[in-house]
């Protein structure tokens, strides 16, 4: 399930639902990305999506990850709009029989979401706003998955 939301969400409530009733899944990994205050340097984050297109592109990657890592299931929830420091921005959950697959798929999906997913990000600081492009670390993170078929 892939969902974009303008409203704050509780990652715990999502995990409770996701982990329920899984008697053959052995492993659930999650990642929650939280907006950092950067000691006052960031007043708010603003994320723009292209409704329909953004979910579609994320859906393709999620389907690829399910096949590549043999997942039972995965879920992605992403905030859009204006996000205050301390609020969750993204939640990814993966379910698999074994923990290595669950961890790697979660890691893989986050690398994609942070560097290539169709969002446009603006940081509002005390001196105004600026558009953000993916950083070198994001490019290095996503490049790991081209080199290896599994770890």
């Amino acid at each position, binding site marked *: 399930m892939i969902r974009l939301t303008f409203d704050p969400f509780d990652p715990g409530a999502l995990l409770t639902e996701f982990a329920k009733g899984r008697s053959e899944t052995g492993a659930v990994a999650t990642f929650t*990305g939280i907006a950092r205050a950067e000691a006052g340097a960031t007043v708010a984050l603003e*994320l*723009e999506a*292209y409704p*329909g*297109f953004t979910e*579609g592109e994320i859906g393709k990657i999620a389907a690829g990850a399910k096949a590549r890592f043999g997942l039972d299931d995965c879920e992605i929830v*992403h905030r859009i709009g204006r996000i205050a420091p301390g609020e969750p*921005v*993204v939640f990814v959950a993966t379910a698999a029989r074994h923990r290595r697959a669950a961890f790697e798929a979660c890691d893989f999906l986050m690398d*994609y*979401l*942070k*560097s*290539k*997913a*169709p*969002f*446009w*990000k603006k940081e509002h600081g005390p001196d105004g706003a600026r*558009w*953000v*492009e*993916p950083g070198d670390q*994001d490019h290095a993170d996503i490049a790991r998955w081209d080199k290896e078929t599994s770890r």
Partner: protein
Amino acid sequence: MARVLLFGRLSDVAGWRERSIDSPFLSALRITLAAEDAALGEALGGKGVQVALDQVIVRGDAPINPGTEVAFLPPMSGG
């Protein structure tokens, strides 16, 4: 008429997010937009800006049918 959508910094440059514009081809649409707003014309041709017609990325020129959604997408930042 095509629905033209601008995302990210492109809408900041143009001062609008969505407009209806009549144009038979993507190339003609670019010329129309640039003639009206040179800064936007330059931004639309900038590095890494992609175009989607009805949510499918296209490269080069393409015909625009009436009712088509034309989206100009600057480099995606990730979430």
